[in-house]
């Protein structure tokens, strides 16, 4: 039983990381229907910003977290402006290739200019474990879990309660109609990118702190997993992304704990395919009725 709860904790903390990343994916997809392949790399940028700002300017944890969110937001907006905006009316698959190009550029540019070595993230918060009835949970795990939840709730509030959130929802349903009623499409899309990318930036610092190891290619695998999480939850849906992220984290943990570690990714994809077959738009996705 102790082991079981320990594995649940492991799964939740892994899942919260996927969930944080999946949120950015799902928001961008919701508004311009683009699989933003570069999202995982913004998370890498956030981690590197945290690394340099803490090491060079001795930022505290909060300062590093907030500043990396700003850096994430800025890079998201810049990428959108230069790489995706010119392709707003191009076929979607073209924009996807551009996103892949941006991802290659960030990964290889960082490797080229800052070397591809793995670095140890400065441990500004010393990790210690709490023992609750034999189940170990560390302060950083709690921190990640809490930050992830707070950010998710905040995001939900922004989308549901603010004017900008309303605009975002309008654009995602029908951008032409939204434009007609006076919504500034470009500004709304930029805002979405800023919001989604700032979450990735935050995730970068949190994960850097948690795992203590960052490198320029760190965004690749979690990026794809987070995308899978977003699709699983129903891409475009904020609660869906969180649920998808936690689900994948727990699934991976479960299969590793029963000794199928070699197949853990295969199982995740298998579950994804099965869920998509039963619910073609993911768990929380709206199934569009096709009009004739």
């Amino acid at each position, binding site marked *: 039983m102790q*082991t079981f709860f*320990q594995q649940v904790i492991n799964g939740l903390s892994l899942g919260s990381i996927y969930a944080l990343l999946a949120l950015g994916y799902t928001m961008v997809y919701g508004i311009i229907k683009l699989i933003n392949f570069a999202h995982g790399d913004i998370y890498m940028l956030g981690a590197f910003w945290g690394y340099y700002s803490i090491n060079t300017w001795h930022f505290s944890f909060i300062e590093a977290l907030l500043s990396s969110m700003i850096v994430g937001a800025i890079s998201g907006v810049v990428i959108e402006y230069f790489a995706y905006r010119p392709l707003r009316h191009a076929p979607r698959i073209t924009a996807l290739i551009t996103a892949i190009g941006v991802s290659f550029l960030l990964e290889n540019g960082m*490797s080229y200019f800052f070397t591809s070595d793995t670095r*140890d993230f400065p441990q500004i918060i010393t990790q210690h474990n709490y023992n609750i009835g034999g189940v170990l949970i560390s302060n950083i795990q709690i921190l990640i879990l809490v930050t992830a939840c707070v950010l998710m709730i905040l995001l939900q509030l922004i989308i549901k309660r603010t004017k900008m959130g309303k605009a975002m929802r309008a654009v995602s349903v029908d951008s032409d109609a939204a434009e007609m009623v006076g919504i500034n499409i470009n500004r709304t899309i930029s805002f979405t990118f800023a919001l989604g990318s700032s979450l990735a930036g935050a995730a970068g610092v949190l994960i850097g702190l948690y*795992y203590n190891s960052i490198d320029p*290619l760190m965004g690749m*695998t979690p990026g794809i997993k987070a995308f899978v999480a977003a699709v699983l939850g129903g891409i475009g849906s904020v609660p869906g992304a969180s649920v998808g992220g936690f689900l994948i984290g727990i699934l991976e*943990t479960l299969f590793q704990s029963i000794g199928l*570690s070699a197949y853990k990714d295969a199982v995740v994809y298998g579950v994804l395919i099965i869920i998509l077959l039963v619910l073609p738009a993911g768990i929380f996705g709206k199934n569009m009725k096709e009009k004739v």
Partner: protein
Amino acid sequence: MKKAVKKITYFASVAAIAVIFAGCSTATTSSKGNPVTDNTIKIGENMELSGAAGGYGNQMNQGIKMAVNEINQVGGVNVNGKKQKFKLIVRDNKTSTNTSASVATQLVNNDKVNAIVGTATTNAGTAQIPNITKAAVPAVSPSATDPNFTLQKNGKVQPYVFRACYQNNFQGGIGAKFTYNNLKARRVAILYDNSTDYGTGLEKAFKDTFKGKVVDTQGFTEGDKDFNAILTSFKNKKVDAIYVPGYYTEVGLIIKQARQAGINVPIIGTDGMADPKLAQIAGNQNSNKIYYTTPFSTKASESNPVAKKFMADYQKKYHTEAPTFSALAYDSVNMIKQAIEDEKSADSTKIAEGLSKIKNFDGVTGKITINKQHDPEKPIAIEQLTNGKVSNTYEIK
């Protein structure tokens, strides 16, 4: 009906072309050996500078550059009484097999190199073998560890393939014996890198040699960061030790997470984790009871003048402690230099001959003798980390 006839004629004509093509003799490209054309000896570097193994490839690149610079600073290699400089041609293979094959053909055919250093990984390395063999240019890999890497399918040695590192069976066997004899561990769990031949090969070699009980074997994928689930499952199995063949990037995290989960048994690994970054990633306070097999022991280097000089130079140039990969790459270049000096020629076929005859070569990673399988025979040591620092070195005979 008509349509079917049409289709049949169509395909028949296509098949006819195919037969014509297959029947006629076709040209093949070939060349034999690259002699020295002008006064420089060209060394090609086919290296993983980007892609999954980019981090390791860049460490090797540093070692190679250092070796070439050092050789050129003293005027070059002594070829039959005449000094000739090295010219290094660096090409990136993106950690991809087909790019590696292409890079190798470019190096041997267009750049006309006399020898190649590379690749870092076995997969990229095997992709270059057909091309370098055709061109008769030897290649020394600093870190391709698959036992069959230097062998042809029929078990004969590949004439132009060499390596500077241990092959898996040797290293895994040593690790297993050490775990059983010195650490007295009887129940061992293995957590290995399932996405590289390095991890899978060592896992197999360890299992084959280990006399105790392997209670659990679990794999991870390169780039994984979370090992808590696997470690938690190990915790209940009452293991005496954990064997972790993999690279320092992941093993560092395994050590950190194991210690934080309260697993304090010895962790034994391989030369892939012999890197100062290991303790940085794991955290010094977590790096206790860590053992790894390594050719390049910091302790042993104090008695080895070549290693001592290398360590000091590396520190001066890159402001960090030298990693094993840089040392292996540095040795690869110097083995080529030694072969040239021994054979008094820098023609590619002669270098290959010279490499196969290397005996008692003083390398950073110990005294190297190339055996019949083109594997280096050199001493192996096991280092122990305490609080992130090497506290003990076991010489294995």
